[in-house]
């Protein structure tokens, strides 16, 4: 016997109440002066004994009632091996329904999730009346749809029936922890967790912790004990192909230019797959198609897909393979913004006497890598000026400004550059022999917080050809250089740098928004609030670990700085094949500064900085696959001084369209599934057996009768109801006796 509200037993002290009332009442009487005492005396003597007995009976009943009431409120419960005559005790249950993407695997008739929902409904139906149920949708997060167990089981049933499937990855541990936490605060003799999942291996990556936690919960005594029922809905899907990545190889998406996308297709199955048709769709229309001859089990193939974007603005570019039983990973979409042209202003700090000697000679050719006659049509337009012309230049006529070996900057120029960058412009800084490091550090560094790093001491000797630094050879984390993780794209490492400035990365400014890290395999950015959004970052390092390239965001724009020169004075980068892609990708990053975050992983937050015009405007977000009438209204809020539109209900993969009525704007962003979810391999049998030690495990089959199964496991009863009935009976008896005893006799 245990008590679910043991402290309520102190209520038994209430039995003192009738005794005290009795004693107090004996002191509260009416005094009547009376003549006919002899008759009263005789009558009292005759009735004394009877009245005393009656009083004692009533007092005993009242005390007993209160004691029992305290007992009932303390909710005594007993685990027994048989069903109680009063029926099953109430259950506090948490239903964890796996709604990760892998639950979308279909057997041709219904998906795993359809089955899971039915099982979850059965679990609700199997709860004894008076029970309460909470519902958690488990993916890589625990989404508490019904946070506190509700007694409204119809609500729980409806919630389960209408639960949406997400495109998120799986991690069951947070959900199990949440469920245990929810149950911990409940007082019930019986606590149960129903975990309905497909047993995908990826979801059990914290299996050890799960086992430990569940075992601890199971081994608890009394009301802390939690029983877990695990229903595995799996149908050994042996084949699965998925588009595991899609990136735009060229960093920029200029209008009417051939764009190269890299689609990565992975075979998660156990058999080799042949002749896989990979198609590229732009805004839903087929643009390119490539056939991969074969992919071995567990293998990955990347294919280039080419297309052109015909109109300016946002496009959704989808790579698709033929549908299989797991449709969620058969396509992957990017949101790409087509741009008409990019105007680059190059400020040449050392023009030299002839073009070849100019600081920006290589830069100009790398930015416009086409013959002179085609340069007119090329999307990158460059203009070159000298530092002396800086004063009369309107930066807003350009998208990016490149400072190449410019000695120092006037205050006006620095102010102009700051507001240019803050409005969304890009600034690229190359040092050189003329550069006045102290001036830069104070003008752009400490005064305006524009530099990602300060210029330190120059090191190395440009004349000394034997001694040089190379770039890092692997681990290219930054999106600009992530391309070179793939050896087929060439190498950066061959570059030799003879002389360079030491770059000292600056700490993040406190007013920076959010943060971002990147996923090198998919090129998808993922926001992370813990790291500052605009924190200065190293893009590329030298082999000795010092920084070769660094960047930081500022306002809507971005600043990138190099440690060495733009020409071949201090290094040979400018004559390496990697120079052009590096420069273009950098330019792409600078230009698409405010398009970044347009491609996020499922579940990640989409955040977009906007200009002040948009502050407090309402944005309608339309999720992929959502009915036309289910539009989400979000308001552009001020975050750290910048208007930001954020959206984090990115449960479904695909294109999200954001429209703002005034000024009329449409923004698109794409949400991409986690490739880890495509791997449908299941928890090994011996692990399932091990789980059987801490939970009742049942594999789904079409005839599964959950109720019968759980009722066998569910024994024991609470006794507050019979006690309460007894209290009510005593109350009735007391009323009757009190009336009967005090009737006129």
């Amino acid at each position: 016997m245990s008590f679910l509200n043991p402290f309520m037993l102190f209520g038994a002290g209430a039995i003192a109440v009738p005794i005290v009332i009795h004693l107090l009442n004996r002191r509260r009487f009416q005094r009547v002066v009376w003549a006919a005492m002899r008759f009263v005396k005789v009558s009292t003597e005759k009735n004394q004994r009877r009245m005393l007995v009656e009083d004692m009976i009533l007092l005993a009943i009242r005390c007993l009632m209160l004691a029992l009431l305290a007992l009932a409120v303390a909710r005594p419960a007993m685990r027994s091996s048989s069903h109680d005559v009063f029926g099953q005790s109430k259950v506090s249950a948490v239903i964890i329904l796996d709604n990760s993407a892998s639950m979308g695997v279909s057997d041709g008739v219904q998906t795993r999730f359809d089955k899971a929902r039915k099982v979850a409904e059965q679990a609700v139906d199997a709860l004894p009346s008076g029970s309460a149920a909470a519902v958690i949708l488990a993916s890589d997060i625990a989404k508490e749809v019904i946070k506190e167990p509700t007694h409204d089981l119809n609500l729980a049933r409806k919630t389960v029936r209408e639960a949406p499937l997400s495109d998120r990855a799986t991690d069951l541990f947070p959900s199990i922890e949440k469920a245990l936490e929810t149950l911990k605060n409940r007082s019930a003799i019986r606590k149960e967790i129903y975990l309905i999942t497909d047993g995908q291996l990826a979801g059990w990556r914290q299996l050890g912790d799960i086992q430990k936690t569940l075992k601890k919960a199971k081994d608890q005594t009394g009301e802390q004990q939690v029983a877990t029922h695990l229903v595995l809905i799996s149908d050994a899907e042996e084949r699965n192909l998925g588009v595991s990545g899609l990136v735009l190889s060229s960093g920029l998406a200029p209008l009417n230019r051939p764009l190269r996308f890299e689609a990565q297709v992975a075979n998660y199955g156990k058999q080799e797959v042949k002749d896989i048709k990979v198609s590229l769709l732009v805004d839903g229309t087929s643009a390119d198609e490539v056939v991969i001859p074969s992919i071995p089990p567990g293998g990955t193939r990347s294919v280039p897909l080419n297309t052109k974007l015909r109109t300016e603005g946002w496009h959704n570019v989808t790579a698709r393979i033929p549908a299989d039983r797991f449709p969620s990973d058969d396509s992957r979409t990017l949101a790409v913004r087509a741009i008409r042209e990019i105007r680059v202003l190059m400020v040449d700090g050392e023009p030299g006497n002839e073009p070849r000697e100019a600081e920006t000679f290589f830069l100009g050719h790398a930015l416009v890598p086409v013959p002179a006659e085609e340069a007119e049509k090329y999307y990158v337009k460059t203009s070159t000026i000298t530092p002396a012309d800086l004063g009369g230049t309107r930066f807003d006529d350009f998208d990016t400004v490149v400072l190449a070996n410019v000695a120092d900057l006037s205050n006006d120029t620095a102010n102009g550059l700051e507001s240019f960058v803050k409005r969304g412009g890009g600034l690229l800084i190359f040092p050189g022999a003329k550069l006045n490091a102290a001036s830069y550090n104070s003008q752009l560094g400490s005064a305006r917080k524009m530099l990602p790093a300060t210029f330190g001491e120059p090191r190395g000797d440009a004349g000394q050809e034997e001694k040089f630094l190379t770039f890092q050879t692997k681990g290219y984390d930054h999106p600009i250089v992530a391309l070179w993780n793939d050896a087929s794209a060439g190498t950066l490492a061959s570059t030799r740098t003879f002389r360079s400035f030491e770059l000292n990365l600056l700490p993040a400014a406190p007013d920076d928004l959010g943060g971002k890290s990147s996923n090198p395999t998919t090129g998808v950015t993922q926001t992370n609030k813990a790291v500052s959004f605009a924190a200065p970052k190293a893009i590329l390092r030298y082999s000795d670990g010092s920084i070769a390239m660094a960047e930081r965001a500022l306002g809507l724009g971005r600043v990138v700085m190099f440690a060495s020169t733009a020409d071949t004075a201090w290094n040979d980068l400018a004559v390496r094949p990697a120079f052009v892609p590096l420069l273009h990708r950098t330019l792409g990053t600078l230009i698409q500064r405010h398009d970044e975050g347009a491609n996020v992983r499922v579940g990640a937050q989409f955040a977009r900085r906007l200009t002040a015009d948009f502050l407090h405007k309402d944005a309608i977000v339309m999720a992929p696959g959502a009915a036309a009438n289910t539009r989400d209204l979000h308001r552009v809020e001020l975050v750290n001084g910048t208007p930001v539109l954020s959206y984090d209900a990115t449960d479904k993969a695909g294109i999200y369209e954001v429209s703002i009525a005034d000024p009329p704007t449409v923004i698109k962003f794409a949400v991409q599934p986690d490739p880890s979810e495509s791997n449908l391999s299941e928890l090994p049998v011996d692990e399932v057996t091990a789980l059987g030690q801490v939970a009742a495990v049942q594999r789904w089959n079409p005839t599964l009768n959950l109720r019968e199964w759980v009722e066998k496991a569910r024994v024991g009863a609470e006794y507050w109801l019979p006690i309460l009935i007894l209290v009510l009976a005593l109350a009735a008896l007391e009323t009757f006796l009190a009336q009967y005893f005090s009737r006129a006799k």
Partner: protein
Amino acid sequence: MDAATLATLLDPVAISRAESLGMHARYLVEGYMAGEHKSPYHGFAIEFAQHREYAPGDDLRYLDWKVLGRTDRYYIKQFEQETNFVAHILLDGSESMKYGSAGYTKLAYGKMLAACLSYLILHQRDAVALDIFDNETREYLPRSNSHAMIHKVLSKLAAFEPTRQTNIGAILHDMARQIRRRGIAIIISDLFDDEEKIMEGIQHLRFGGSEVVVFHLLDPAELEFKFNGLIEFVGLEAIPNILTRPQEIRASYLAELERFRSTIRSGCEKNHVHFVPVNTAQPLHEVLSGYLAFRLKTSVK
């Protein structure tokens, strides 16, 4: 004597001390007289004793004409006394008479009754003796038929305050010894005493030749015992306080009371004593006229 004359005859001091009593008595008596001119007490006074020879100066009204006609002798009819009839009014003045639930006590009611009876009796020139007692005689007015007697009676009654417990039996025995002449003993009491001793006293009175009338006064609360809740009864006489729930012992109490009353009633009947149970909630004139009417009826027969 009419009411106006009586009012002028009453001493102002006595009136002021026993104003309520006197007024009540008068009112009630008048009420009675208005409907019933022929007082039943009238009969008591014609109590013939003996003849004696006429002597000059005797009132010719008392000459026995029948004897004169038969024997030609002058005889005067002689009565017992100046008054033939003495009413001894015994009013219980013990503490138990202090009880009253209707705004007045049993004693007050008894005083009114005594005053009314005194008035009535004196009004017809019969003599009245008043004895207010508890465990012994507290106040006593020797018999008299004078008009001043009513004032004395009223002031005595008005001035009396009870202090002690009762002992009716002993008092009745005393009275029986004192009353030499046959008269009428009117006992006004709640009789809260040993019923056997009371009956013995009554028997003693009856043995002495007195007619006995018992007015048994009981308060309506005593008769009905309608109390609720927890009540402590504070005894007016020696019995210690009792804490009880009266509604639970009511039946038993009423049975006890009835047993007591029936003992008294049957004892009275056995001794040819008029037993008049009086609920003090009843208007006095009703009680009085009821009883007097009953008495008239029985006397005429």
